[in-house]
């Protein structure tokens, strides 16, 4: 198992380098830089000040020099300084990362739990009314923008009923402790997690249904039935376990999409995470910050995919063989 993960890690190295180069070049194409934005916001600055700022953040160097300097910093695990916040990029990103991870893992967990349950139910009663009803509901959910469901949930649960907060990640100005703090955080997380999860609930339900229908026709399932195993045992031990292979592959691939989708959800709910930080970085032309975010989130995706590989090796021991 460890050999498998080490190999995958090595394979990821060229990908990460590619991402670094792609993003570095792409970001230099954005017109204007952070100093322009800073000067604009402070109501103009003299030419000398602009020069001074640019040389402070290394923006006056040529493209190749900037790349060389960045790679040099990176070798020391230093992501550089954010001109916008005047703080180290790594600190800014690590501050926001837990919030985004909470949101994403919550959404992914919810989506997998409900999606696999709904998909199993649909495949078990395929063609009958539970399948038809659930299929329709899932297709509707699959076609609805998550942030729109979020907005409608805000309308219902925050504006009309007043049950749940619609903004932020905790009540500001209160110094809560213990269970009260946890409850407060959970209340703030319900709507964002739901808004991010809806699309993926539908996706995993569809995938699980399709994968289970595929597996149900296999000979070993007939054998399991024939040797007298109960229907529930056949579904849980033989069908679902094998159907989870394609579902988990795609769950790993979707992690990148989920990370991007979090940008909209975080803006909608005022959730201080990486997605909103990305938007702030784009608006203020903060390349260092943007590059740091893109690099770290891509590496997060790589790590998640390694975790998925390990999970699959556990699901199906044959995977290790090749």
């Amino acid at each position, binding site marked *: 198992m460890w050999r498998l993960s080490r190999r995958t890690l090595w394979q990821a190295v*060229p*990908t990460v380098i*590619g*991402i670094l180069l*792609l*993003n570095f070049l*792409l*970001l230099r*194409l*954005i*017109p204007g830089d952070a100093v322009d934005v800073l000067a604009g916001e402070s109501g103009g600055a003299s030419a000398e000040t602009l020069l001074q700022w640019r040389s402070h953040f290394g923006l006056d160097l040529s493209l190749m020099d900037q790349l060389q300097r960045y790679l040099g910093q990176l070798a020391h695990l230093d992501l550089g300084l954010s001109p916008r916040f005047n703080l180290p990029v790594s600190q800014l990103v690590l501050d926001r990362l837990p919030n985004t991870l909470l949101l994403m893992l919550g959404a992914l967990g919810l989506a997998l739990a409900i999606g696999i349950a709904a998909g199993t139910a649909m495949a078990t009663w395929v063609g009958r009314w539970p399948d038809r009803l659930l299929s329709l509901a899932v*297709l*509707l959910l*699959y*076609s*609805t*923008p998550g*942030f*729109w469901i979020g*907005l*409608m949930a*805000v*309308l219902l649960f925050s*504006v009309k009923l007043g049950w749940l907060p619609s903004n932020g990640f905790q009540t500001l100005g209160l110094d809560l402790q213990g269970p009260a703090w946890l409850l407060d955080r959970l209340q703030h997380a319900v709507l964002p997690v739901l808004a991010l999860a809806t699309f993926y609930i539908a*996706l995993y339900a*569809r*995938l699980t249904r*399709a*994968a289970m*229908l*595929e597996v149900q026709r296999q000979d070993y399932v007939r054998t399991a039935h024939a040797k007298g195993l109960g229907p529930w045992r056949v579904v849980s031990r033989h069908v679902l376990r094998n159907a989870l292979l394609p579902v988990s592959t*795609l769950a790993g*691939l979707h992690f*990148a*999409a989920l*990370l*991007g*989708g979090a*940008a*909209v959800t975080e*803006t*909608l709910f005022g959730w201080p995470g990486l*997605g909103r930080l*990305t*938007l702030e970085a*784009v608006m203020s032309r903060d390349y260092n910050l*943007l590059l740091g*975010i*893109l690099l770290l*989130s*891509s590496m997060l*995706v*790589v790590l998640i995919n390694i975790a998925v590989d390990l999970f699959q090796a556990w699901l199906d021991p044959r995977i290790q063989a090749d």
Partner: protein
Amino acid sequence: MNSSVLQPALSGYSESIWAALLRNPSALIGASMLGLVLALALSAGVLYPGDPLDMVAMPMLWPGDDPAYLLGSDSLGRDVAAGIAHGARGSLLIAASATLISVLIGGVVGALSGYHGGKLGDVLMRVCEVFQTVPSFLLVIVIVAIGNPTLGVIALAIGISSWPTVARLVRAEFRTLREADFVTAARSLGFGNSSIILREILPNALAPLVVTTSILIAQAILVEAGLAFLGMSDPNQASWGAMLGSGREQIASGWYLTALPGLAIIFVVLALNLLGDGLNDALNPRLRRYIP
């Protein structure tokens, strides 16, 4: 001699697509829903002449308040119905061009890497992996920030971030098909690579590509809506996502301003997904391939 290898397969193919469309209820429902939206988009200029972004009515009219403005007006007095009709045009145009770009890039990369394999194939798949690892929505945001939020740039950004799906699919098809007997036959008849790719393999790889295209258009509409919701939309073009974004401010006093454009998005995305599902069932009955 040229046509003897090719013709029967191709004509049989297009026939089966139409026959499959007509036989499959969900494809039929999806296609007619999509037809409605297309008709609305095409007739937007006739139904609602003039700029949908102009202030024409009292602000914040509820739907039904004034028969002249069937779906009400927003906080700036813009006609919501006109916005939805013209927004259909913008959304479909962006989604269709984004998908075209993605199919073009993905098709070329997938065909080259699947047909030739080897070093070139490996390198192309590496590039593909890079684009799949970067969170695609963040990539779209960065590309839109490089250009300006115009229709073309938004379509390009969505296309650039979504081509790996197509490339992987086309590559898989080409890898299987290049070993098929009819390809060997064409090769032994002396056909060149490009004519084998374009006239032998491509028509046979079309079915999954058609299904994926309809799903990609649906996804592009959702991405465009999210982007416009964040304020990154063409300021001179009515768009459902932008209507959602500005209606959000009035969620407490006029929730219809967020509900209506949202329902429009759901309607067209549902139509495309129904069409995609129907085509998938009809064209791959044996494989039951599911492409999310």
